[in-house]
């Protein structure tokens, strides 16, 4: 059948050239059935030949009359089945019989897509929603589930911090907040994890979920789809569904081994270059130089080995299905001291009772993650420690490691001394589970079409993060810390109760079918965060296993409780699958806000027109399906700390007391507060189309959107006397994101059944323009109307920041001076353009600093290719970003010769100094703001599948992060979300080999 389809498609392509002869006409008739054992007749199939068209009847029959005699092809198509074309030869006044057996095809439009509180056929969606299922997930050593969909969905930017299982950030259609979170809401099997709600001592809060247990990930990109999640939906919603069992009992095992190595490290001077630089620019320090040739980075990096094993038992009976899984994962980082180790358990059980009227679903996912981290200071000191210096020093009886002479604050530390005398690790236990009961009332005539769902969910976390720095390492002794110990034990529990009714009246309501969903949700979170931190510790004997006697011991406990209560409803209306409309509303009551502001309403509405169903479109042969969509909706963002609406009383310390009645009294101060603090709110327009063309060979969607976020939180001056201080955190700013997303999946080649070549590709592109519209109307316009971005701190200087929040510019734009260059392309030290350009001046913040470029990519491309040939499979995924800029902070911080004399011992220099010749730091030069555009081969995989005792066994090899082409000179152009490359963890290239077996 596949061969047939292939041939048919080929014929179609040349069909336009087929000649028609004679004026004589005839009739074509036949039946259309399904190509499975039942051969059930298919009604409603569109069958066409030339300009003639017919729809099959209930018995699957059709008839085309008046067809010109000759040879041509006749085609049959219906949603959910692969279209077919068959050749015919027709004599005048004759009748030709052409029967079709259509093969069901899980094409995009027939796919069942998870939406909030239910599922929907992709074809009926009127919103911008994209679902990725496990067959399309990224291969290789994947620790965090978010990585599975990297590069796969337009409008979705995935950024990871390169550490094993590292914290991943996702931006759906740009950054829509400054002081609240911009991360999407994650919902795992119906349980919202909440923005920032997951505490973790590990790298990423979603690591409790075994990537191998994930069946599908759905991104709700626009407000029409996301607004059903109300106040947590402004940054998009990510729905994660875990696998459940089906079919006979089977066991699956997947195992893999991987090996990771560093791709790129900061480019620093080697021993000879360093010696030469010191000799020339810091002759006084030559005597301090050793004779070693030490490559500090090569001493701290390593080949990171990893392994992953997953086993699952799954199956289904007449009225139940189940899947049990266990997983083990161990991945070492490419820098010593960092690793992640995870044990996962997953249980999904589904039992149907009372003639399938009652459907009980249980899903429990849990994990223990043990993460270790490279201690702070290792990476930066590997860059800055002199390469002429030895590693060891026998005279150092405490640690045995060499350090620069003296115990000065202004010298680098031996990174190996830190690495081997400090620890930093975390253990996280987390489980998320859900019990859902769904009852179908259809056996009561009056209640036909009604189902009720009750769902009880939980999300519990216990996390323990411990770090310890010995009291005799140079890094600790030089600043008087003299050792430090820190432990934070966090515990958090969320409970969730949701009930909702779904009603689909059995008869049409007017011309169309109605679908109504309405419900109630109650979620409650309790958390407790105790911490202990100690410095000046008396002994290293305990390591991190006890709190030693300490000069300073600070303990704290924080209890954070919150509630979210919601009522929600959605109504859909569908006329003949042609005219579609949907509206939803959610009313959220949140504990984060004060009386009068606790409740917010988040409405959304969308319409769809499947124009391909219209008669006038039937003649447009290349269109299999085309749906036009438009939507508007409002969503909220409350991902910021609890209790901001209420004035809190801050205690004094013992040096700010006042005498009252003969004793010094600690003074308590109530904080300034905006009691009317409310959600950041986003209104989104989305106009798009879902298409399927050339016999569903190309399917995809295209969307244009405009997201306007108001009531952004900022701390701004307020009218004196109206509050308890002169600045207050309030809802005042606005930001806009506009752009478009485009996805296409192409079935380029379909293999014949006996296993030829098949080739699928998918490509996506997205463009986003972010503009901060306003931050603070209380400050007069002009150059002063900006806020230096407090999150953009850089190394070098004290309290230096390099980004700005300025209306008219993207959020987090770099705020730098425009470098003047010599004719030979070398930057002219300390010479910058004046405001407006032209003349030159030294760099002065607020005078000739300008907002230019920003860390967010303006264009994101993803391309995936999957080929199978007989038993081989081969795939790769490419990614490109355009227009993202990175501030190379390693270069700006130690890219000048003054670093040789500024401290008590010379710092090693970034090799950019050989190009610039800078004598002093030029922290605000835009020379260091580099274009970070890149093309990256994210993964390449090859596999071979053996038939094995009637089951299958697949061997595969994957290389992740195969290569990156970029003009950026630093470590990684995806340098975190903030675009500041300051000794970031380097990116690794990972080779994985593994096998999957199923029996």
């Amino acid at each position, binding site marked *: 059948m596949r061969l047939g389809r292939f041939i048919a498609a080929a014929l179609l392509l040349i069909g336009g050239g087929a000649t028609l002869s004679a004026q004589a006409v005839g009739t074509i008739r036949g039946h259309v059935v399904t190509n499975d054992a039942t051969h059930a007749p298919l009604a409603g199939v569109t069958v066409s030949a030339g300009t003639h068209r017919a729809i099959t009847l209930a018995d699957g029959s059709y008839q085309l009359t008046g067809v010109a005699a000759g040879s041509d092809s006749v085609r049959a198509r219906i949603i959910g089945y692969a279209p077919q074309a068959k050749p015919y030869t027709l004599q005048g006044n004759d009748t030709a019989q052409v029967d079709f057996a259509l093969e069901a095809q899980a094409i995009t439009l027939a796919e069942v897509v998870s939406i909030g509180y239910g599922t929907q056929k992709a074809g009926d969606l009127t919103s911008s929603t994209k679902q990725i299922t496990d067959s399309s997930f990224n291969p290789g050593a994947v620790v965090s589930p978010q990585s599975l969909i990297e590069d796969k969905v337009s409008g979705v930017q995935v950024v990871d911090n390169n550490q094993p299982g590292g914290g991943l950030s996702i931006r759906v259609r740009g950054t829509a907040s400054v002081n609240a979170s911009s991360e999407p809401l994650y919902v795992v099997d119906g349980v919202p994890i909440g923005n920032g709600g997951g505490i973790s001592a590990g790298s990423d809060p979603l690591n409790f979920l075994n990537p191998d247990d994930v069946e599908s990930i759905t991104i709700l990109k626009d407000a029409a789809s996301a607004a059903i999640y109300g106040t947590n939906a402004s940054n998009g919603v990510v729905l994660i569904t875990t696998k459940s069992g089906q079919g006979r009992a089977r066991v699956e095992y997947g195992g893999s081994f991987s090996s990771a190595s560093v791709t790129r490290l900061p480019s620093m001077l080697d021993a000879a270059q360093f010696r030469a630089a010191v000799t020339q620019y810091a002759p006084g320090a030559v005597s301090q130089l050793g004779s070693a040739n030490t490559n500090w980075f090569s001493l701290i990096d390593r080949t990171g080995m990893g392994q992953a094993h997953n086993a699952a038992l799954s199956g289904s009976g007449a009225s139940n299905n189940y899947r049990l899984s266990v997983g083990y994962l161990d991945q070492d980082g490419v820098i010593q001291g960092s690793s992640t180790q995870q044990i996962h358990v997953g249980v999904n059980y589904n039992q149907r009772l009372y003639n399938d009227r009652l459907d009980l679903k249980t899903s429990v996912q849990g994990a223990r993650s043990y993460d270790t981290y490279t201690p702070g200071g290792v990476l930066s000191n590997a860059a800055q420690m002199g390469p002429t210096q030895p590693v060891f020093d026998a005279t150092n009886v405490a640690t045995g490691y060499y350090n620069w002479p003296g115990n000065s604050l202004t010298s680098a530390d031996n990174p190996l001394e830190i690495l081997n005398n400090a620890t930093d690790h975390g253990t996280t236990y987390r489980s998320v589970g859900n019990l859902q009961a769904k009852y179908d009332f259809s*056996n009561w005539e009056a209640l036909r079409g009604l189902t009720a769902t009750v769902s009880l969910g939980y999300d519990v976390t216990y996390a323990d993060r411990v770090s310890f720095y010995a009291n005799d390492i140079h890094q600790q002794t030089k600043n008087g810390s003299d050792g430090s110990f820190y432990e934070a034990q966090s515990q958090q529990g969320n409970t969730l109760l949701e009930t909702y009714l779904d009603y689909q009246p059995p008869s049409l309501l007017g011309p169309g079918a109605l679908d109504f969903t309405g419900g109630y949700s*109650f979620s409650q979170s309790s958390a407790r965060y105790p911490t202990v931190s100690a410095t000046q510790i008396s002994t290293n004997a305990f390591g991190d296993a006890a709190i030693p006697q300490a000069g300073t011991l600070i303990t704290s406990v924080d209890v954070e409780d919150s509630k979210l209560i919601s009522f929600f409803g959605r109504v859909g209306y569908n006329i003949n699958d042609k005219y579609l409309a949907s509206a939803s509303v959610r009313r959220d009551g949140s504990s984060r806000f004060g009386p009068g502001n606790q409740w917010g309403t988040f409405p959304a509405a969308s319409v769809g027109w499947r124009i391909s169903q219209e008669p006038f479109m039937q003649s447009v042969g290349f269109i299999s399906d085309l749906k036009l969509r438009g939507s508007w909706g409002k969503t909220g963002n409350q991902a910021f700390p609890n209790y901001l609406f209420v*004035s*809190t009383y801050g205690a004094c310390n013992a040096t700010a007391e*006042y005498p009252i009645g003969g004793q010094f*009294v600690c003074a308590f101060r109530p904080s300034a507060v905006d009691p009317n603090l409310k959600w950041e709110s986003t209104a989104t327009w989305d106009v798009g189309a879902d298409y399927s063309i050339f016999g569903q060979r190309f399917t995809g969607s295209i969307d244009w959107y405009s997201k306007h976020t108001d009531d952004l939180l900022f701390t701004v001056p307020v009218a004196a006397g*109206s509050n*308890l201080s002169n600045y207050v955190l309030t809802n005042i700013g606005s930001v806009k994101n506009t752009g478009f997303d485009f996805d296409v999946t192409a079935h380029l080649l379909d293999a014949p059944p006996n296993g030829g070549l098949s080739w699928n590709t998918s490509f996506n592109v997205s463009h986003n323009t972010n503009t901060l519209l306003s931050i603070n109307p209380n400050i007069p316009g002009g150059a002063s109307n900006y806020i230096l971005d407090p999150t953009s701190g850089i190394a070098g200087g004290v309290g230096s920041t390099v980004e700005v929040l300025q209306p008219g510019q993207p959020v987090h734009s770099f705020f730098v001076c425009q470098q003047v260059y010599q004719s030979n392309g070398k930057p002219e030290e300390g010479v910058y353009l004046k405001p407006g350009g032209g003349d030159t001046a030294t760099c002065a913040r607020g005078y000739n600093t300008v907002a230019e470029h920003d860390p967010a990519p303006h264009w994101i491309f993803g391309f995936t290719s999957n080929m199978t040939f007989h038993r081989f499979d081969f795939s790769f995924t490419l990614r490109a970003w355009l227009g993202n800029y990175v501030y190379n902070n390693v270069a700006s911080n130690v890219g000048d010769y003054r670093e040789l004399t500024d401290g008590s011992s010379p710092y090693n220099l970034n090799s950019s100094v050989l190009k610039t010749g800078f004598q002093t730091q030029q922290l605000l030069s835009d020379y260091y703001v580099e274009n970070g555009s890149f093309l990256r081969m994210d993964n390449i995989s090859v596999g071979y599948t053996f038939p094995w005792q009637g089951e299958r066994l697949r061997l595969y090899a994957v290389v992740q992060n195969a290569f990156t082409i970029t003009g950026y000179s630093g470590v990684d152009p995806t340098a975190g979300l903030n675009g500041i490359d300051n000794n970031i963890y380097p990116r690794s290239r990972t080779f994985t080999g593994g096998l999957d077996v199923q029996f």
Partner: protein
Amino acid sequence: MSNSETPLEKGTHRERSGHMRNNGWKVLGIATALALVGGACTDPTVAPQSTLTTANFFQDPNSYKEFLAKIYLGLAVGGQNGGDGSTDIQGIDGGFSQYLRLYWELEELPTDEAVIAWGDQTLPEINTQGWNASNTFVNAMYYRIYFQVGMVNEFLRQTSDAALASRGVSASLKTTIQTYRAEARFMRALSYWHGLDLFGSIPLVTENDAIGAAAPKQATRTELYNYVVSELNAIRTQLPVAGPAPDAATYGRATQGAADMLLAELYLNAGVYTGTADYANALTSASNVINSGLYQLNPVYKNNFTADNNISPELIFAVAEDGQHTQTYGSTNFIIHAACGNSMSAGNYGVDGCWYGLRMKPSAVDLYSAGDVRGATIYKDTAWVEGVASLSTFGDGYPNPKYTNKTSTGGTGSNPPFADTDFPMFRLAEAYLIYAEANIRGGGGSAATALGYVDSLRSRAYGDTLHGVPSGAFTVDTILAERGRELMWEAHRRTDLVRYGLFTGGTYIWAWKGANAYGSDSTGVATNSHLDVYPLPANELIANPNLKQNTGY
């Protein structure tokens, strides 16, 4: 691949309708029950536990005292941490923004008494009346005043009868809180006085205005004056009466005497504030202080300004500072450090270093004649010149280390980086001078008594009775000069000169008056009368559209 299944295709099932119906009811019942249980929960309110809010803070009976401490501390330290950390107002350094430091600078630097050397942006212009509506220090003073007002208003809201009743506060604590409330109202009246004196017409916000409500409306200077006077008259008898110094119970706190002094200040300047003078009440209020018998002139003038000035019987209201417990880079600690520099030895003043800032203008030095102990602290070392040729040169103009972190017995304060010296806001000597001025200006009383008061100050200053006010010279001008000598650098001068009509205009010119702060010409010139009040902050006019800028700015 070949055996992939169609998902969740239901098989065929036998109908068991009766059985199912019963179960259906069970399920429906459970679902309804759950929905009702859940649905009953429609209140999302959650009380914070680890943070102190009004809900839990006031459960502790000590909280009222701790809040009151903040109201006083707002004048003593710039923030919640010693050394002015965790600042009360944002947008300016904590030490710079310390209440008394700002108040002192605005009252002294633009007058004939003092100059400051530092070049901090917009600070030099205060030396020369050269400020505009964007002056950092002027603006910070404005926000300091409203920080105090905000604290007091909140204190009053949290201690209303209804609030106390709702918390079940004990009767004895309630009585104590009534005194606290009177003290808080005094502190608000004090700051409003500073506000109406420095800025003229500004918003009047009270405990009856809600937090975060609309931008407040501007009150006229007369409305503010009337409000402050009525407040003080309402609370004066509720305030504690000071005991003999040192009185631990009332140390550093508002007393009836303090309220009377503040009333005297208001009445004395009523003509400036409202256009209608009220010298009779000024005299009455001053008399109330003097006749209370609670205060005596300190026999040793300079002991009003020492590390142990808390024991001076002359002080009526002082803001308490302490090197250990109440640490600030403002207040007296600022004056002591800043009036020290060059060859002066910081140790002689009980501090850890010199800041090279404050000196006297020659017009102030010239007020003193030989033998007057009040001028004896002026540092007339040969390395100095009296004339202030350059504002920024510490050797130009004599420093006046009148305040010191040494005790009256020669010991050093408890912690040299931070002085123990309390800031003497009101002292008995000024009550004498107010009585005298009010009497001369027709406020009633006895001329002989008035003269006697002034003579008592002069005899203390000279150590004899030979330097009384000369016959026929008992005039308002004499009083102004006497105020200058007696209250030098005590943050009264600008108010005095405005009352006398001499602060601006050309009647009285002193060095640097109206000059270019960044130039070298110290010759003074006449200035415009709009400078008699400071401008409202330029940014405030945007934040509060109800405001109208003072004329001339």
